[in-house]
């Protein structure tokens, strides 16, 4: 144990240096950009798809992190926003195609521009849903909110299963009979122009890069948000609602912003997922999905962007990768496919246990945000003493300064 700990500390120290940080980001960029290309070149489309799926979950986890991590509100129905985004995207897309066809704009080889045209507005359905559910219930205390959001998630799933307003085609999903999703614009272009030799620039690789771009955009926006006036209001509200409201933070609007901005990413992820996979059904939006996204945020570290991303990668990828590896010659001697598929079966059991253990031992997550870590840890005498010392030193310094002046 001691050796492992020392090793970890050494690794941590290395990454804290400038060179270490640059090296870390270089390796990370290499993995995110080139590994899927390598897999594609090797003809392993399955792994490319897993990379893209991980990206979708990263997007979801980053969005939920705004609600749970920054604002401290537990949302157990987050997947509903993902569903709203997916169904809205599909239906608006069908409408657009019909309209274009009616106007005679569709050429011989119809390409689907609806994904791109609707992308700037993809957040809108999610945000609207977020405000709709948030406005009446955000006045509730935190734990009631968790149950109400859970109820909202279930309402959306049940409504979609029952073909609400005739737009969701019930349990059989979209596209229904007579509806088609044409290949999304750009997909064919990259396939024809960027493939060479044996390397095929596949649809999944194309979507992977779109998703990576969206994730980078999300990181940029959310980092800016975290450092904004609103971000500070979230922190203040999370730590002490009464104190925050007494210094002028409007609790209800601040919470509503968190809800709406979190839901926005759910909507964007849903829109993208719908056009990538080309098929959506109510099964993809059940309660377990919401719990999984919560697990990602909690495991990685509430309020921490690197933590959230790590959580999403671990929870989505690890069971799939183990299953894939067991099928490959690399691990075939070590792990039988049966054992590997057990990992997939046991993952929810393991995640459940992990959530309990994490809350007891490391509630701040694997890669915590510093501020959140201190908040989640029970009051520690040594930390308190340290803080008092710092306070005293600061005051003392001030005194000596004024003496000089």
């Amino acid at each position, binding site marked *: 144990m001691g050796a492992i700990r020392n090793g970890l500390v050494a690794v941590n120290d290395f990454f804290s240096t400038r060179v270490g940080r640059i090296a870390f980001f270089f390796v990370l960029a290499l993995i995110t950009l080139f590994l899927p290309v390598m897999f594609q070149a090797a003809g392993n489309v399955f792994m490319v798809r897993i990379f893209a799926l991980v990206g979708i979950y990263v997007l979801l986890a980053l969005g939920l992190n705004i609600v*749970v991590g920054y604002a*401290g509100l*537990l949302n*157990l129905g987050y997947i509903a926003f993902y569903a709203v985004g997916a169904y809205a995207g599909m239906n608006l897309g069908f409408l657009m195609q019909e309209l274009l066809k009616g106007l005679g704009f569709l050429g011989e080889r119809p390409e689907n521009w609806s994904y791109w045209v609707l992308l700037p507005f993809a957040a809108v359905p999610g945000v609207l849903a977020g405000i709709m559910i948030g406005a*009446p*219930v955000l006045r*509730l*205390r*935190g*734990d*009631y909110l*968790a*149950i*109400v959001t*859970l*109820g*909202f998630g*279930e*309402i959306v799933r*049940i*409504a979609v*299963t*029952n073909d609400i307003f005739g737009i969701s085609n019930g349990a059989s999903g979209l596209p229904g009979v007579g509806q088609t999703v044409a290949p999304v614009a750009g997909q064919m272009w990259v396939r024809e122009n960027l493939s060479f030799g044996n390397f095929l620039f596949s649809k999944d690789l194309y979507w992977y890069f779109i998703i990576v771009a969206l994730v980078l955009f999300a990181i940029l926006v959310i980092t800016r948000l975290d450092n904004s006036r609103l971000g500070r209001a979230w922190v203040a509200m999370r730590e002490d609602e*009464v104190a925050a409201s007494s210094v002028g933070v409007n609790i209800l609007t601040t919470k509503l912003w968190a809800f709406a901005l979190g839901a926005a990413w759910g909507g964007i992820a849903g829109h993208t997922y719908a056009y990538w996979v080309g098929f959506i059904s109510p099964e993809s939006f059940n*309660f377990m999905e919401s*719990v999984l996204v*919560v697990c990602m945020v*909690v495991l990685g570290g509430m309020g921490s962007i690197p933590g959230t991303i790590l959580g999403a990668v671990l929870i989505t990828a690890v069971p799939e990768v183990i299953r894939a590896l067991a099928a490959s010659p690399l691990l075939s001697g070590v792990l039988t496919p049966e054992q590997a598929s057990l990992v997939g*079966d*046991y993952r*929810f*059991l393991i*995640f*459940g*246990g*992990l*959530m*309990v253990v*994490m*809350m*007891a031992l490391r*509630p701040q997550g694997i890669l915590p945000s510093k501020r959140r870590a201190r*908040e*989640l840890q*029970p009051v520690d005498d040594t930390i308190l003493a340290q803080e008092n010392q710092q306070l005293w030193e600061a005051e003392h310094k001030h005194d000596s300064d004024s003496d000089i002046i």
Partner: protein
Amino acid sequence: MSAELGIIAQQFVNGITLGGMYALLALGYTLVYGILLMINFAHAEMFMFGAYVGLFTLQGLSRIAFFTSSGPALLLLYVLTFLIAMIATGILGVVIERFAYRPLRHAPRLAPLISAIGVSLFLQNAALLWISSRSLPFPVLFEVRTFRIGGASISSMQILIIVTTIVLMLVLDSFVSRTRLGKSMRATSQDRDTAGLMGIDINRVIALTFFIGPALGAAAGIFSGMYYGNIKYNMGFIPGIKAFTAAVVGGIGNLRGAMLGGFLIGLLESLAAAYISTGYKDVIAFVVLIIVLIFKPGGLLGESVAEKV
């Protein structure tokens, strides 16, 4: 009696049966909330666990010829099944409290809630992996007779469920309001720290709460198995939400409120299934929950308490 009234009467009977199960489950939510101010998200899994223990006990004991030989022996078999399932589930509840919730008693409120979701996830998947992913038939060892009263019919099973539920509620109610332990529970729920200063062993009271709640939940789980004829690893999720709604409707923390809320939700659901749509019957509870929380967050019987700062 007209056919219309007959349907209403029938839905009333069904609703009361369903409501009894919700009420038993709701008591567990309300007991824990009253004392720890936390939503025991894993309580729905007590319903499931109790049903499984009940099933296995019933299967095991019914192999002994004595238990199926006569009417009184069969009654003994059922009483034993309920006792064993309730005690086992109660012990599970105490163990969960000890390991998952007690270390978090002074943590921010989000922490025990997440821990409870973890427990729920763990138990559900444990049942899925180690018992069965399919639904198991729940045998009924006695002959179910149906009686007609007016336009409605009521089965001996429904009578059994309603009567046992009411007996369990009366026992709990007099336990909490009459006995010394019940008094210490009430004191703890009013003010945990002061109760501790008055010489009440807080940990013991909390453990007791986590025994009683799950034990009642287990009884509800067995009833559900008997009533619907099968049990499944995820059977607790939807009734759990409805029972929580029942607890909130009645005023969370209030025992009689939970009982009232349970019957109300059961009735509303049966009537909605008959008159609105069966596809949306699970939505009713959620809609009721949201409406109650917006307009009367204290519930029907709860006093509106300002949030402690």
